[in-house]
């Protein structure tokens, strides 16, 4: 069964070729079936292979052809089927299929319909190459390919120059990460003499390799992961990337591409777990990113920006878990996160569709009645991401939190805070969007309608997945009771390094209980503010509420909360956004760019155009270079 693996990337590729080569001549109706259909076929094949893997979990290498062999260096074009890669493949093809279907509705009036789907198919192809390849080079090609497609899709609506600059930012930041990845790969070849996963990891166990080199390699690879998965300091491209069409944000910037960094770390878990230094770095960067972006998300008013910062935050949480050695828990969260975050984005897309393109939540509200399917699916996703049982997010998040707790208590507290903030801003989003009165102007208001079937059906399917998705990896605590041994751990055991942390059953249950209570408190708090009090985030120009108003409303608890928590947090979030992100990180990135251009302006002055100067410069540099020889002879 595993031998059929090559079919999975083949179908999207064929579809891409057909659509792109025929250009705009291909009728829309054919594209509508061809593009999602190809992904669906791949999904079916992936399901079959997955079934085979469940009955006989094993790592199978499927060689297609020897790619090239130059000197000692050789690379095969072959695929690796194991639990990790097939799990990712399932998510990519499954969620990818749903998003393709959704796109047929969402992009229906788009002029460049075919171009959009050709990019989307190409993206799926490269993403599959990334997770299925059995060596670092193949992964790198997929890695670059998805970056390119992401760039093309972010800039898809290039009429707006902001979109184009967002696309450029995404590409440049990704390239910085790629530079690390490439160096890491080359160093791996230098150290192990191979770039094949099996050959490299086999040597990790047997041969004693210099620990420093391992640290170097893993740090370099992690730089790649930081770029792709939008972690500090390379995370600012992801919120900007929301300029692209919403289904693209769902597929690339929530469910698949941004998880490539996690795939990389999980795939090389054998390597990473050898370097405690790197593991610390990963955990710290992960939790810092999670915390920073969660605070920023608290006060964003653009529906997609909230989700974008939320994605960054969740990815940070996963990295923190990976850094604590919880590889399979991280992978688990990637899967569940793909379901509910894709659902959230698609729901947001549906809302934006209904709101005639407006993305500001201050203008929304009351959409519950007018868009019931969107509302219920969005609600499910919000519950799932908040970690309320028995929805998907609960299991994965709980497992991560538990394993972080076992390693480092401070990180656990921070992670808990992050997930509480997640609950808050998600419910804020939900309440502001769907409850209360509609705040939009009349033209928009009259136009609000439920989205077409092609959009609501994928939403419903994803909602179902968000509900039941968690059961594939039952948590330790409940698992013991129900005699379902942490199945995912076992399933992934031959692909990623299992975590050896054993935790007392009671501790885990206690943690779970505390978390749940806190979540409940936060939800009630959010409800208080946004439904009972009907407070709407101020428009950007409005002044701060006066003390008088505070007394008038008499919500003392709320106001204390506002004074003690909201305002400082608001300030901090504003500070973080304005100074750390815009002035700090962006400034550094832009500064490097500017300094290159400045140097360039300076150096080009050497090209004076005068022949005398050229000859003189040549002679002088000859003399300088000859000095090296004179000193030696």
């Amino acid at each position: 069964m595993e031998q059929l693996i090559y079919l999975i990337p083949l179908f999207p590729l064929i579809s891409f070729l057909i659509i792109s080569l025929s250009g705009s001549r291909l009728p829309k109706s054919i594209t509508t079936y061809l593009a999602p259909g190809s992904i669906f076929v791949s999904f079916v094949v992936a399901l079959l292979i997955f079934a085979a893997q469940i009955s006989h979990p094993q790592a199978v290498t499927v060689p297609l052809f020897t790619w090239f062999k130059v000197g000692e260096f050789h690379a095969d074009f072959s695929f690796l089927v194991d639990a990790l890669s097939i799990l990712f493949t399932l998510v990519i093809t499954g969620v990818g299929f749903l998003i393709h279907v959704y796109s047929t509705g969402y992009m229906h009036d788009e002029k460049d319909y075919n171009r959009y789907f050709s990019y989307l198919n190409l993206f799926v192809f490269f993403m599959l190459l990334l997770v299925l390849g059995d060596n670092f080079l193949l992964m790198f090609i997929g890695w670059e390919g998805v970056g390119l497609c992401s760039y093309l899709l972010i800039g898809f609506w290039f009429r707006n120059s902001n979109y184009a600059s967002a696309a450029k930012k995404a590409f440049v930041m990704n390239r910085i990460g790629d530079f690390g990845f490439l160096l890491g790969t080359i160093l791996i070849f230098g150290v192990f003499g191979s770039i094949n996963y099996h050959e490299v990891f086999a040597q990790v166990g047997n041969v004693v390799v210099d620990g420093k080199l391992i640290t170097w390699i893993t740090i370099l690879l992690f730089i790649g992961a930081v770029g792709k998965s939008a972690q500090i300091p390379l995370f600012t491209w992801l919120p900007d990337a929301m300029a692209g069409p919403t289904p693209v944000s769902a597929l690339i910037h929530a469910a698949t591409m941004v998880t490539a960094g996690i795939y990389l770390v999980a795939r090389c878990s054998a390597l990473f777990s050898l370097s405690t230094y790197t593991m610390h770095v990963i955990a710290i960067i992960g939790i810092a990113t999670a915390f920073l972006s969660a605070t920023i998300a608290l006060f964003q008013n653009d529906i997609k920006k909230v989700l974008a910062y939320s994605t960054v935050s969740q990815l940070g949480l996963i990295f923190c878990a990976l850094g604590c050695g919880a590889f399979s828990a991280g992978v688990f969260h990637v899967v569940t996160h793909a379901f509910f975050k894709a659902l959230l984005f698609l729901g947001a897309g549906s809302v934006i569709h209904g709101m005639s393109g407006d993305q500001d939540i201050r203008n929304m509200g009351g959409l519950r009645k007018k868009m019931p399917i969107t509302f219920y699916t969005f609600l499910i996703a919000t519950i799932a991401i908040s970690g309320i049982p028995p929805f998907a997010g609960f299991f994965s998040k709980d497992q991560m939190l538990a394993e972080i707790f076992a390693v480092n208590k401070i990180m656990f507290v921070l992670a808990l805070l992050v997930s509480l903030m997640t609950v808050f801003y998600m419910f804020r989003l939900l309440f502001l969007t769907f409850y209360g009165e509609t705040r939009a102007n009349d033209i928009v208001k009259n136009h609000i309608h439920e989205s077409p079937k092609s959009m609501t059906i994928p939403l419903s399917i994803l909602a179902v997945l968000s509900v039941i998705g968690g059961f594939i990896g039952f948590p330790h605590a409940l698992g013991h009771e129900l005699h379902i041994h942490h199945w995912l751990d076992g399933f992934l055991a031959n692909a990623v390094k299992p975590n050896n942390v054993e935790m007392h059953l009671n501790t885990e249950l206690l943690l779970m209980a505390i978390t749940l209570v806190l979540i409940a408190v936060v939800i009630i708090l959010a409800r208080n503010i946004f439904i009972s009090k009907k407070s709407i985030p101020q428009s950007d120009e409005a002044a701060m509420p006066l003390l008088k108003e505070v007394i008038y409303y008499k919500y003392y608890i709320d106001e204390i909360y506002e004074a003690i928590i909201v305002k400082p947090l608001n300030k901090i979030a504003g500070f973080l956004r304005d100074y750390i992100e815009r002035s700090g990180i962006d400034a550094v990135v832009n500064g490097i760019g500017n300094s290159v251009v400045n140097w360039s302006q300076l150096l080009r002055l050497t090209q004076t155009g005068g022949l005398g100067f050229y000859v003189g410069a040549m002679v002088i540099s000859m003399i300088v270079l000859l000095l090296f020889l004179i000193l030696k002879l």
Partner: protein
Amino acid sequence: MLLSQYIFLFLSFVAIISALMLVLDKNPVHSVLYLIITFFAIAGHYLLLNAQFLAVVHIIVYAGAIMVLFLYVIMMLNLNKDIEPHKKNIPKVAAAVAAGLLLLSLTALVNGAEVNMLPAARNSNIGLMDNLGKTLFKEYMLPFEISSILFLSAMVGAVFLSKKEIH
């Protein structure tokens, strides 16, 4: 000192002085004449080195053909006055310093270099037409033929560049 050494020093003196004058004199026609003197001095060196045939060819090709071409162009473009605008002083000094430094570093590099004289060097006839011809048409057959391509392309190019466009 041997006679040959005197001759060497005399010829070298003439060559270097006239080469310097070539560089320093402002009138291009004078420069041509100084260059011709340098060529004659070099031809003298060739004779000293027993390369009689080459000495003759050198005079014919350089003094006879190439320098005539130079003179022809100078006359045609009417450049025979010292119309050359003065370079500023700083570039001049820089030029002199750069060339001087190059001279210094090259001499420093070759200083003390040995050239092993082979026994065959006793044969003073290598510069005769007979030997040269044999080498040229046996060993160096291919470059000899290939240089025709060089000439052909230079000829085509020179004609192409100089002829007037016909419209």
